[in-house]
């Protein structure tokens, strides 16, 4: 069973020592939603609000909040974030706004707490900016959508088999669509150990049309130094949808691409 990493053997809270962990490129994306009256949403989108540009203010709040996460969450490490982006999406069906935050760094610990804090504070700022016109706004559905890098590898909400019925999963339709556009990349044996992950997901938007295995390799190499180093080995074999192919073979959205060293069975 997975243990709570912030609790030590005596059951007391402690900050995890990450000094022995490898420095890897990490990123995390979180989202939050804020329900509001359609008129309030309309007001934000047409920038007719008395307090000025609501979204620009909430965006800055989200960025500032990500940087202050370790001040707010007791056992969080202070991090040197290399990027924080905060985006908003108007969803007339909610009705309301969806907030997405992506945090990146090269470091020894994950950045999902920063992304979660960022969307939370951006949503609170939206509330603050609009409370004069709408007191019934509801902030909800704050969750991590995707995590990349680190020992536990890549994770995304859409790619995971969930025990929660799909119809109550508050994933935005845009992100759901994105998951069909993904290529599942798997690693085996020595390569798996080298890249420190069993698999990862490559978004097809990052690849050219008529992409080949070589393009997938280029996309992976661009992701982090660990992958770049592993793919310098030219003897690696590749299988697309579980059939061995060469590097000129075409890759399509939804394909499973596996890389591995020459086989040694028998």
């Amino acid at each position: 069973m997975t243990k709570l990493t912030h609790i030590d053997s005596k059951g007391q809270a402690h900050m995890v020592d990450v000094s022995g962990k490898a420095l890897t490129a990490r990123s995390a994306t979180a989202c939050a939603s804020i329900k509001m009256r359609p008129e309030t949403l309309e007001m934000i989108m047409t920038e007719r609000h008395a307090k000025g540009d609501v979204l620009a203010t909430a965006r800055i709040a989200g960025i500032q909040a990500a940087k202050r996460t370790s001040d707010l969450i007791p056992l969080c490490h202070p991090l040197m974030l290399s990027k924080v982006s905060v985006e908003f999406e108007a969803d007339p069906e909610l009705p309301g706004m969806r907030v997405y935050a992506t945090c990146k760094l090269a470091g020894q610990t994950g950045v999902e707490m920063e992304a979660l804090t960022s969307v939370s504070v951006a949503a609170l700022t939206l509330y603050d900016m609009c409370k004069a016109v709408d007191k019934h706004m509801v902030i909800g559905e704050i969750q991590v959508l995707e995590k990349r890098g680190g020992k536990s590898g890549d994770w995304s909400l859409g790619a995971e088999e969930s025990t929660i019925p799909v119809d109550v999963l508050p994933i935005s339709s845009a992100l759901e669509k994105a998951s069909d556009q993904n290529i599942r990349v798997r690693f085996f044996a020595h390569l798996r150990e080298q890249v420190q992950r069993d698999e990862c997901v490559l978004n097809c938007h990052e690849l050219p049309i008529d992409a080949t295995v070589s393009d997938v390799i280029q996309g992976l190499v661009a992701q982090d130094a660990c992958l770049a180093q592993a793919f310098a080995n030219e003897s690696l074999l590749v299988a697309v949808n579980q059939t061995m192919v060469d590097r000129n073979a075409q890759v399509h959205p939804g394909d499973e691409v596996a890389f591995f060293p020459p086989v040694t069975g028998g």
Partner: protein
Amino acid sequence: MIRIRVQPEVFNAGQEIDAITHARSDIGAVVNFIGYVRDFNERPDVVALTLEHYPGMTEQSLQEIAKSAQERWPLEAITIIHRIGRLTPGDPIVLVAVASAHRQAAFDACNFVMDYLKTQAPFWKKEHSRSGDYWVAARHSDSDAVRRWENANE
């Protein structure tokens, strides 16, 4: 008939041959190969090995190797069993049993299946020796063995 199994459990070669020949009087020859874990390989003191594989692709790949053998020789049956997980020296790893009306086809097909299994089926061995763990490197002699069949085809 093609039988493919990938399993951690030990197999019984006698039972597998009986399963092939049971109630058949047209089989004139069964050739089988059994591979065992050695206590010496790249390093002299191997204490165990762990076999990793690519579930799904492994079975598919063995099935295809068996099919190509059937296309090449008149065969009555092929059984391929490959073990996975942790094995120790002396443990059987792989069984290939091939049945035909005549011995030459059975001998050749058994050889062919092993040569292709060694270079195509997604299995990887990590050996545990007294001086540490390491992933076994592929042998050139194995790819040379496969090339022999490819050249014979032309």
